[in-house]
């Protein structure tokens, strides 16, 4: 689908300047050995993200001689050990998707001081000196846009439920904060409940069912979810409570094809923004740039696109793609969107990797 | 030395002790007697601080005491050898002996070297040699009992209580124990001794106190009493004949159980015998001789190394308890609690366990039938239990044993193996059990009776196998069944025994 391909949205908004980093001190001759310390492959998004990383590697086969992967299974302390093990194996660059935002700061700082450049992806760490570049799709921008859409769809008035992801996980917290910031601009919007869902459809459904029970389905005017993972659970809860079709209040949340399918089938107002997994491939490309001595931005924002159900664009949020053009009705509901890989199918995905 | 006044202890549903008064002085052996469940163990547990009495006072060493924990009683110089072994299987013999009192180095750490040496010394005094560094779990029950006794000889003991210490040790060790007890008595220690073996009482006790149903019957000097009077005090009635009359079974018919060259190494070596219907065949021997293992090997609950076992004309060489039960064999084990009863279940379930298939119908377990059967057994053996659906955990030892008799008479059609069927059971209950055994034999069962109490073997059996170290060292019959002969075989070297038999 033809989506948004302008300048990164945060590039326009961000009050801070984006530095360009001189990487000539890291320049070397290939083929390079890159170590990739992944936080986890524990859910659909992470699985697709990892495929995107592999896809990026396969596009640079001529430059990458070895690509060593470790997986911390969500545990920052294991990730620190993983990084130490990668360093012992003589990597030229460390690509890292931190399990939590701050905990890896010391070890990444040490890595940089050892002269091994660090590229972080999806999450960054506190100190600028602990990495060369950070590749992301902006959590803040994503949440601001979806929250703005929600507020405008409700004409600035209504009772809204917030369903953030995993308590304490930095993307969830950043998105939640951004959304709250936006909703605070609309005095008519009342946030009636905020419940963490752990990005689990099951939790999303269970929690929403209880809220519907408490408030009555008719008294909920909108559900802001930071991802379709729990958003789909929320829609299911409404359907379970007998509210179907366009009667379902406006929802937000992207990523999960199932969410798009539900929105398409039922026709309620919907805005989906994927936290695009294609940042994986982008990070690999950037890593190669670093090793070749090409200057890189300190922060690389990968574009996401805004998907909106037909007729539900608002004053400031317009669709890059309309829902019917984006949803993959013939594909499984579990599919994660926005991988950037042509004809992506997670089960059959396979690319050629170095050794 | 110790005086208990008006002690009462109530458990939910049972008044274990009812206004009991008891006194014992330094330098005497005071025997405490009574039927199962009379409250003996409960009484001494109030002495030791394990239970806090509901009423009454305790005076010890001239002062009124109120223990809040066993530790306080222990610190005051009271040492108790409980009926249940109080041992730690993963600790060594020496550590068990010195638990809480280990000799320390000047850094406050345990001085293992000294501890081992002193443990050796104490066991020496008891005339019993065990590797003091061995873990207690590797010991036989008899050795474990000796460790338990050895604990009493550590530190200063003013009052020593022994609750059935001889239940699992052999005659020679019991002799040494008695010598030790007498020595301690002469040193001025006050000793309270509990046992169901009346011979022992007469050989060491100075005074006797009898309890019945939690109440005091009386305290007498041993000289005032003879055996019958003592039994009378305990049971509350005259017990004329302890053993029912023997009946010589017909040995014409083929044996119901034939065992040939049975080995279950290392404890059973080359055991052969025949058992006929209606016969009570005894297996005697010292504890540790391997008698229980013979029973287990026949029953199929431990693996056999070699040899054959046949029931009637039927060999069965893929042994398992299930196969044995299906062929009409029953086995009443020596350890009621660990290997016998299911304490969490009710009486009827305990009785029906081996023959569950009999109660299984298309719609499940036939509870009504099961309960009926249990009720029959309860009536038949006069088990003192409120009903088939009440639990077994709080029954007295004798009644628990009768429940097991109910179980096995129900399950077993041809051969019943009884391993120590009267262990820890009072005289009254014993007599009843002897009658039951007699009756079962008369009904045509072959009975294999294992017992460490020689009078029992002598009084009941028409033929006796004697074992030592896994071998059968002799077989005695008829008038030769007297304690001396049996003991001779039980302690004989194998070769000399073989000579003797020849």
């Amino acid at each position: 689908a033809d989506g948004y391909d302008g300048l990164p949205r945060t590039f326009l908004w961000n009050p801070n300047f984006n530095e360009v980093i001189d990487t000539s001190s890291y320049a070397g001759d290939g083929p390079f050995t890159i170590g990739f310390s992944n936080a986890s492959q524990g859910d659909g998004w992470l699985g697709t993200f990892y495929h995107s990383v592999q896809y990026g590697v396969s596009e640079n086969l001529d430059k990458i001689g070895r690509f060593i992967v470790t997986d911390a299974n969500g545990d920052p302390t294991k990730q620190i050990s993983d990084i130490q093990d990668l360093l012992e194996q003589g990597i030229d660059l460390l690509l890292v998707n931190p399990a939590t935002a701050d905990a890896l700061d010391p070890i990444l700082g040490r890595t940089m001081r050892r002269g091994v450049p660090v590229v972080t992806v999806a999450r960054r760490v506190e100190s600028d000196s602990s990495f060369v570049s950070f590749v992301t799709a902006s959590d803040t921008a994503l949440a601001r846009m979806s929250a703005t859409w929600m507020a405008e769809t409700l004409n600035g008035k209504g009772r809204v439920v917030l369903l953030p992801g995993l308590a304490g996980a930095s993307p969830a917290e950043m998105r939640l904060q951004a959304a709250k910031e936006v909703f605070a601009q609309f005095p008519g919007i009342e946030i009636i409940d905020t419940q963490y869902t752990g990005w689990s459809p099951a939790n999303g459904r269970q929690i929403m069912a209880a809220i519907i029970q408490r408030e009555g389905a008719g008294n909920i005017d909108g559900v802001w979810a930071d991802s379709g993972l729990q958003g789909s659970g929320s829609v299911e809860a409404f359907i379970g409570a007998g509210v179907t079709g366009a009667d379902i209040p406006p929802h937000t949340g992207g990523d999960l094809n199932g969410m798009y399918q539900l929105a398409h089938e039922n026709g309620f107002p919907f805005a989906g923004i994927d936290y695009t997994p294609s940042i994986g491939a982008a990070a690999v490309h950037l890593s190669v740039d670093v090793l070749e001595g090409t200057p890189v931005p300190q922060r690389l924002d990968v574009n996401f696109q805004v998907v909106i159900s037909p007729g539900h664009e608002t004053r400031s949020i317009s669709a890059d793609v309309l829902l019917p053009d984006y949803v993959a009705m013939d594909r499984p509901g579990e599919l994660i969107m926005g991988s950037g890989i042509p004809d992506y199918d997670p089960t059959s995905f396979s690319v050629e990797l170095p050794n | 030395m110790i005086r208990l006044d008006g002690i009462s202890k109530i458990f939910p549903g049972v008044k274990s002790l009812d206004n009991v008064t008891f006194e014992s002085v330094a330098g005497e052996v005071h025997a405490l007697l009574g039927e199962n469940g009379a409250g003996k163990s409960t009484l001494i547990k109030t002495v030791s601080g394990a239970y806090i009495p509901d009423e009454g006072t305790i005076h010890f060493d001239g002062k009124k005491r109120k223990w809040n924990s066993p530790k306080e009683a222990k610190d005051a110089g009271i040492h108790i050898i409980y009926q249940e072994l109080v041992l730690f299987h993963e600790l060594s013999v020496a550590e068990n002996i010195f638990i809480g009192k280990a000799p320390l180095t000047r850094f406050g750490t345990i001085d293992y070297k000294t501890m081992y040496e002193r443990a050796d010394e104490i066991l020496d005094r008891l005339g019993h040699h065990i590797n003091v560094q061995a873990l207690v779990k590797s010991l036989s029950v008899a050795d474990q009992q000796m460790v338990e006794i050895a604990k009493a000889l550590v530190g200063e003991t003013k009052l020593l209580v022994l609750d059935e210490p001889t239940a699992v040790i052999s005659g020679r060790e019991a002799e040494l124990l008695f010598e030790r007890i007498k020595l301690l008595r002469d040193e001025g220690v006050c000793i309270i001794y509990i046992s169901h073996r009346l011979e022992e009482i007469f050989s060491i006790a100075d005074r006797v106190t009898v309890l019945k149903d939690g109440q005091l019957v009386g305290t007498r000097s041993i000289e005032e009493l003879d055996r019958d009077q003592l039994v009378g005090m305990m049971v509350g009635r005259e017990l004329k004949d302890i053993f029912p009359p023997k009946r010589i079974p017909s040995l014409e018919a083929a044996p119901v159980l034939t065992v040939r060259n049975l080995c279950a190494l290392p404890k059973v070596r080359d055991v052969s015998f025949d058992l006929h219907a209606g016969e009570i065949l005894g297996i005697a021997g010292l504890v540790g001789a391997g008698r229980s293992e013979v029973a287990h090997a026949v029953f199929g609950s431990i693996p056999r190394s070699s040899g054959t076992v046949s029931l009637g004309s039927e060999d069965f060489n893929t042994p398992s308890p299930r196969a044995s039960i299906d062929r009409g064999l029953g086995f009443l084990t020596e350890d009621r609690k660990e290997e016998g009863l299911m304490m969490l279940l009710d009486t009827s379930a305990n009785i029906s366990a081996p023959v569950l298939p009999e109660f299984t119908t298309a719609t499940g377990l036939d509870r009504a039938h099961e309960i009926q059967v249990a009720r029959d057994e309860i009536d038949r053996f006069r088990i003192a239990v409120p009903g088939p659906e009440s639990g077994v955990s709080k029954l007295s030892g004798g009644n628990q044993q009768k429940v097991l008799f109910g179980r096995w008479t129900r399950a077993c059609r041809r051969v019943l193996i009884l391993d120590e069927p009267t262990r820890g059971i009072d005289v009254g209950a014993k007599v009843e059990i002897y009658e039951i055994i007699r009756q079962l034999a008369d009904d045509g069962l072959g009975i294999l009776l294992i017992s460490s109490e020689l009078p029992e073997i002598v009084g009941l059996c028409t033929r006796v196998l004697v074992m030592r170290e896994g071998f059968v060292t002799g077989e005695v019959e008829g008038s030769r069944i007297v304690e001396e002969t049996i003991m001779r075989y039980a302690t004989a070297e194998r070769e000399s025994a073989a000579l003797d038999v020849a």
Partner: protein
Amino acid sequence: MSEAAVNPSEGISKIFRQPGRFIVPLSLVLLVGTATLLQPSFLSINNIQDILTQAAPLALVVLGQAFVILVRGLDLSVASLMASAAVLATAFNATSDAMIPVIFLVTIVVSAGVGLINGLLVTKRNVSPFLATLAMMIVLQGIRFYYTQGAPSGSLPEGFRVLGAGRLAGIPVNMLVFFFFFCILGWLLHKSSFGRKIYITGGNPKSANLVGIHADRVTIICYVICSVMAGIAGLFLVGFVGTVDNWVGRGYELDAIVACVLGGIMLTGGKGTLWGAATGALILILIFNIVIILGLPVQAQLIIKGIIIIFVAGLFSRSTQT
């Protein structure tokens, strides 16, 4: 006979003499009462249906877990097995409801295999149930993720939605299924001779062998039952949730154990009822539901959950001690 003729006042006084048996229903009543006071709509048909629909998958797992705990075991692999069953179900990529029985059959067979391995490790190799099932949990997780490469996909027949979240005459379908298994397993445990063997084995494995019961075999069957129930619960949970993910049922293993304990099943084996276990599951789900209905934030939910669990278990153990 004599049981039937108990006079009514006897029943009342029993509560005071044997409080242990009544703690569980009592806490249930208390919880429902509190919830209704706080939120009058709590007792509405709709909410009850909802709670039951949510409770069913956990309750199914609890039924199985009860069997394992009764034979002195513990199964930490149930949640991992639930997710694996869910992933397995999507592997068929079936779209027709006709495939549902096949999916169930395959799931049951595979789960039984897992239970068999757990049981064999525990009995024949004497591995601590905690560790055996913990390792099984990790292994299943590895296989599942390897198969899905982290991102499950594939579709489920529509019929699963009906099974997991549908209603039949107003009653949640999965609740009916739970009721079905509750009756079957209840019969098995409390009425059949196999159930008796379970209690004998759990209470005293040594005696069990000596009365001709193959204690190992009974134990293994209990693990198989537990795993099969977990597999089935996984299918119902995925039907309820609507999407498969690799962590379906995460946390159910500890919840199931807690539910069993709350329901009065002794972790040392041999004691407890299926009825109690099911009530324990309901209590736990009620606790989850109530903290959400109260609109409490996640943190307070955790705190309240912890306090209630300790409190109820404390009441229970208090009343069973002498």
